[in-house]
């Protein structure tokens, strides 16, 4: 008894320690997550990009993706707007912005969200936000439902539709294997004008702010990716409005997982309360039934009782009448006999 109590107290203590150590794990209600400290990212200074497509070439090389039919030195590719595909993790697009004599070039690839939508919707956890900042993908567990492609607000993940066996979702990995070895991502290394800066996200934010401060008339005062969709590890600064270069500014600052958390929180509640509700209704309807059952029986009984009593009376009456009749007959018979005896005596 006493032992068990000590044990019990021990558990309480453990729980207490747990709650002290596991800050965010056990803190309840208003929670705030900053993402992995010191995670890496890339700052894309759009005002610097010259659209040489070196990044595309490098990306293709380091990820050994299939060789495209148009060479990377062929700038005519820029004439149409492209998106990332299963054969190209990154693409550069050209935008002719009104009131700008020079065209603007923008590199597009996975933004490596702090709270990735793809990871949030993957029902086999194929996507993972790594401490390096890179969002990685594990083709060995992927079922191929392509929900990640539905969820991604930047429309980045692409699919190998033409593979019959084990098709994969394809997207930029921020060169996870390379950065974990201390190397630069392929595209960053290749960029001739340092339009791409690799570093810790917080440093990149500092650099971005510094550039905007120093050249107020060369940049618009907004760092894309600082807050978009709860923040991304890939950041952008630009000399023109981001909406003019095909970047959506209506995405909001809500991290993807929070979009579904509300509804998902309702699931266990339903599972917990529905049975009670349904059983309750069932019980009530059942009770109604049994009550009505009862009433019917009572009614029947009442009726039958009444019937019995009437019958009895009827019988009694009949019996009496019968007896009377018999007596009458007997008397008659006796008188007859007496009368006949008298006749023989004379």
């Amino acid at each position, binding site marked *: 008894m006493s032992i068990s109590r000590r044990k019990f107290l021990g558990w309480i203590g453990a729980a207490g320690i747990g709650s002290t150590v596991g800050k965010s794990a056990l803190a309840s209600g208003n929670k705030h997550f900053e993402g992995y400290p010191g995670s890496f990212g890339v700052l894309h200074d759009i005002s610097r990009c010259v659209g040489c497509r070196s990044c595309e070439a490098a990306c293709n090389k380091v990820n050994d993706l299939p060789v495209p039919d148009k060479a990377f*030195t062929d*700038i005519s590719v820029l004439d149409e707007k492209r998106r990332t595909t299963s054969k190209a993790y990154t693409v550069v697009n050209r935008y002719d912005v009104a009131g700008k004599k020079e065209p603007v070039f923008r590199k597009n690839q996975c933004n490596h969200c702090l709270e990735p939508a793809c990871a949030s919707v993957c029902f086999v956890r194929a996507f993972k936000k790594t401490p390096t900042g890179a969002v990685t993908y594990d083709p060995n567990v992927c079922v191929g439902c392509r929900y990640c492609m539905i969820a991604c607000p930047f429309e980045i993940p692409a699919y190998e539709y033409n593979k019959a066996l084990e098709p994969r979702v394809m997207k930029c990995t921020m060169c996870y294997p390379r950065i974990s070895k201390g190397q630069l991502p392929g595209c960053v290394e290749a960029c001739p004008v*340092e339009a791409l800066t690799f570093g810790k996200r917080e440093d990149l934010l500092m650099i971005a702010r510094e550039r905007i401060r120093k*050249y107020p*008339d060369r940049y618009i005062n907004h760092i894309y990716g600082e807050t978009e969709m709860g923040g991304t590890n890939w950041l952008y600064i630009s000399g023109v409005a981001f909406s003019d270069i095909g970047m959506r500014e209506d995405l909001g600052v809500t991290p993807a997982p929070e979009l579904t958390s509300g509804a998902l929180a309702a699931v266990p509640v339903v599972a917990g309360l529905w049975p009670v509700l349904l059983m309750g209704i069932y019980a009530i309807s059942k009770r109604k039934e049994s009550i009505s059952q009862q009433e019917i029986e009572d009614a029947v009984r009442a009726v039958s009782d009444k019937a019995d009593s009437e019958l009895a009376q009827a019988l009694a009456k009949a019996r009496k009448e019968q007896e009377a009749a018999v007596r009458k007959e007997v008397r008659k018979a006796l008188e007859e006999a007496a009368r006949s005896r008298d006749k023989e005596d004379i």
Partner: protein
Amino acid sequence: MNKGKYLLGFVCILAVSIVFIYSTRILGSGQISDVSSRSRSDVIQIDKMTAFGRLEKPPVEFLHNAHTEALAKKKMDCTACHLTDNDRIFLKFKRIKDTDRIEVMNIYHKGCISCHGEMKAAGEKAGPVECDGCHKEKTLYSSSGQPMGFDKSLHFRHSEVQDKKCERCHHEYDEKAKKLFYAKGKEGTCRYCHQTETKDNLISMRLASHIACIDCHRKNLSKKIAAGPVNCLGCHDREAQQKIKKISPVPRMDMKQPDIALLKTAKKGSGVDTMSLNRMNFVPFDHKAHESYNDSCRICHHESLKPCNECHTLAGIKEGKEVNLEKAMHQVNTGRSCQGCHVLKQDDENCAGCHAFMGKTSRTEDELCLQCHMVPVSEKKKLLKPDDEKMLATAKLLSRTPVTGTYNENDIPEKVIIKNLSNKYEAVDFPHRKIINTLVSNIKDNKLAGYFHSQEGTICQGCHHNSPVSKKPPQCGNCHGKAFDEKNPLKPGIMGAYHLQCIGCHKEMDIKKPAGCTDCHKKIKDKM
């Protein structure tokens, strides 16, 4: 049959609800009105009713010229719509001033609709008569009307024809007499008094100019003598503005202004202590030259023609909107201050190549300050007499050498061989001397530039930045090395440095060649 009735009822409900929902479209927010490509310079938004509170219907987009032309066809003039009072015209439509809501509204509705109606009746092309014909949800035209400036040349031409009778336009207001009068020698630009908005009896610049100009022009026209435009396009249309006759050089406006001024921290005898009189090295200022650079006095004398330091004192006072002298002289990102205006000049193609990278900051090296603050402390121990001041200032100005200096030809390396990227391409022959010569020749006729680049090392600083001026400055590779150094995240790596500088400069200077990688980096032979 019963069902049929039901169905009928339902259909009605359906129709009603649809109507309702579509009406919400008007209430609905975020209605994107596509800005039509059609633009005119005579578009006037009739939203006068806002004076009486919220508008019930969208404001009316009024095309003034369309009407004047239509009226001209009928041999009618402004008076068809504008009231006049002893040949002074009122700008408001068929009224002198906004009385009250209903009345003004009726004036518009009666005036417009009746006329349109008549013309329609007469089977002529006429404007709308139904509500949303005028009160449209989205605007059809974007106004291309340009603000009309009364520049020096125009001013001169007017004063010529008015045979220098300034009082014809210039006036002051007498508070007591409650009337306008002419004060000789106190003429300033209209905007000194007439602000953008009308305040009690001080009418807005818009009103003032339209009344004054158009009235006068009309009279002259009626007198059949050469007159300025009376319709919108005449003044506000871009093409028309180009057509306005310009005379140059414009003879100097004579307002007793100095040719050369000595800018000081405070005006003598303005009650300030001698200490603040002697704060800072004085600046000799070539007032006459600057007059010729600018189109109007207002560029610098934005509130009045007073000397700068009367409103912009060392500490700053209310008259100067608390802008102290330092700001008034050095504030960047504005055309009003000395340095601000000079920095703006750096956006010029010939300057931007280097200056674009330096950022726009008022802070410069101390020795640069002395380029303007020339008159040293020793010489202003004693308060100077005006003439001496002038002499001193003139002397200092003349001592300046507005010529771009640089090292002599053979001290400048002719070529620089850049071997980075030699793994991919041939080394680059960087035409070092040629570039410098181009830069120098580009600005040799620019007085301002010449004055600030007179030192021989200055021009080199465009590329050899962040290191002291010298004949043999450090090369790019001496500072720029591996990219993304965490200790020094703001400094680009060597490759970035090269490309940013070269490509950036070429972009800023709008140099088309070389384009693409191989114009600078020759392909490696064996690869070809």
